[in-house]
């Protein structure tokens, strides 16, 4: 069916409004998707079959996360609530109510905590609310957060996205003014703050070991930071606002998705092609390819934990699931090939022929 270079993307059309977040579970067999249409969908990643929907939100669902063993799902919605779902049957286990839209939610790496990022709106301060999760009886949760990290400023610097670090040690937030901040997840103390971008931060996704992360921004760039040192590691330059970026496992790549906002698209000549998913080399920072297909900006990206497929969700309401062809997995820079060859030879036979350069 697919040759070395070509693949057949699978178009997932379960949503009717722009996608807001997509996420694979730990084994990568399921994809969870949320959109502005109130539905939370779950799909089999191998064939694109929709397994079910989690129904109950009454507004845009902004964010979704799934537990390590895929027993439960958590969502954050513009309807001022966060919901804990039974992953297998779509039943609501618990609902948290907030005073403003919940923009982001994520379970800590050990699944003992979770946070909701509530929006700075309706007179509320943008806050990261960390809750302890009662795993023994999921339907009995506490409404009282164990920690609240409040935004220290007006809406122009409110947090827009957030993520856990390795070990649940820190929480990284991205802000509307383009800065990124690291907080101690137990004390709430602000540890680092960097003005990383010129415009709002649109997404933060960590590496699989959660020791470094990629942040994307409307300012058409995306940057890679180390969590411990908060040192800028790499920068990727796009030609359109970046709505989402993710680090691919297996290959040292970074995927960037985005596109011109609707109101600007026709003013740029040849608006077509701006909605592609760009593939950058993580280490060398060059763009090495792209995948076209969406009719609107890409809002969210996620890769399979084994790195062989990824899914993108677009402003056009479509999700595109890509099982990557061999050419993707085979691609290497010459220096990578050489390094690999040398390493291989050294492992196999330390006296093997070497090319010194």
């Amino acid at each position: 069916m697919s040759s070395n270079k070509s693949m057949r993307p699978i178009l997932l059309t379960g949503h009717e409004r722009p996608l807001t977040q997509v996420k694979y579970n730990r084994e990568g067999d399921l994809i969870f998707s949320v959109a502005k249409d109130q539905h939370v969908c779950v799909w089999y990643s191998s064939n694109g079959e929709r397994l079910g929907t989690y129904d109950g939100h009454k507004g845009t669902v902004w964010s979704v996360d799934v537990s390590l063993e895929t027993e439960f799902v958590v969502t954050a919605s513009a309807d001022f609530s966060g919901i804990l779902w039974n992953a297998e049957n779509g039943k609501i286990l618990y609902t948290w109510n907030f005073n403003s839209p919940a923009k982001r939610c994520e379970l800590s790496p050990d699944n003992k905590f979770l946070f909701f990022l509530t929006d700075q709106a309706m007179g509320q301060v943008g806050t990261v609310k960390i809750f302890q999760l009662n795993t023994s009886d999921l339907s009995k949760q506490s409404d009282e957060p164990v920690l609240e990290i409040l935004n220290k400023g007006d809406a122009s610097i409110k947090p827009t996205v957030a993520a856990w670090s390795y070990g649940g040690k820190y929480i990284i937030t991205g802000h509307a003014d383009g800065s990124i901040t690291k907080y101690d997840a137990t004390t709430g103390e602000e540890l680092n703050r960097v003005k990383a971008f010129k415009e709002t931060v649109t997404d933060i996704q960590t590496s699989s070991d959660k020791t470094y992360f990629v942040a994307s921004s409307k300012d058409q760039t995306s940057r890679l930071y180390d969590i411990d040192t908060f040192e800028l590691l790499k920068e990727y330059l796009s030609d359109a606002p970046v709505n989402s970026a993710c680090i691919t496992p297996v290959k040292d790549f970074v995927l960037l998705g985005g596109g011109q906002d609707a109101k600007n698209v026709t003013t740029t000549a040849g608006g077509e092609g701006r909605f592609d998913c760009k593939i950058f080399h993580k280490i060398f920072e060059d763009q090495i390819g792209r995948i076209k297909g969406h009719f609107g900006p890409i809002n969210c990206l996620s890769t399979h934990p084994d790195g062989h497929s990824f899914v993108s969700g677009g402003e056009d309401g479509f999700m595109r699931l890509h099982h990557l062809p061999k050419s993707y997995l085979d691609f290497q820079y010459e220096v990578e090939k050489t390094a690999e060859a040398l390493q291989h030879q050294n492992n196999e036979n330390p006296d093997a022929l070497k090319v010194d350069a």
Partner: protein
Amino acid sequence: MSFTNWVDAGTELPAPQVIDNNDGTKTVISYRYNDQKKKIKVTQKIKLIETTETVNPLVAKRMKWSRFGLEKDNKNIGPATTTTKILEPVTLILSTTWKADEEKEQQLAKKNTARSVMKCRFCGNSGHYSAKCPYKDTFGVDGLPKSEVPAASDKPSGFGAKYVPSGLRAGANGLKPVNEVPALRFTNLNSNVDTQTLQQLVSKFGPYERVSVLKNRDTGEPMGVAFVNMLTKKDAEAVMEGLNGKGLFNMIISVEWAKPKK
């Protein structure tokens, strides 16, 4: 938020048809536009195959989960055509010179399509017109004579490779269109009229829901057609009365009720 501007102003594509061949395969007929804006009819014969995979036991367990939510009543095996579609192959070339490589590939593809000739609708061979197909009468075993194709599948689904406004898609029951008030269709607009100008113009008659000037997808040039949704039907009527047949930038504009789409 408006997201219609990148919508192609072209005509609607026919809804895809799904025919169950009752032999473990199904035939899906869908339509799309190619690079030359030609309408392409894609006939796919799809087989559901059972494969054995070695997976994590957790995954194996989850594969046995029963469907829930909107999928609860779906008893079909495998992905539903309404939510899942395998698309035409996409070439992925990774290279530091990917831009140049992509261009090369495109030119090559163009060359190939330029050479490709019309294919017979019956046997799929080139070299003769469909009407003169030697298999025309003997057809019906593995082909699909036109007469046997159901006029429309009983479950029209609104997806395709082509963008379909989300409100018109199958299963779009949860969300209503932007407004109940019928849209106004402006035609014969001067190409200098952009969304902003038109917004100013119609706001004199009352608050508007949406103003969109259709633009050429490639050049960004306004196409002289615009759709306007006013908040109330009364305002909309006022706009039609006030602007239909009036001159704007040396052009006599015409305003009428937009015909609802099928």
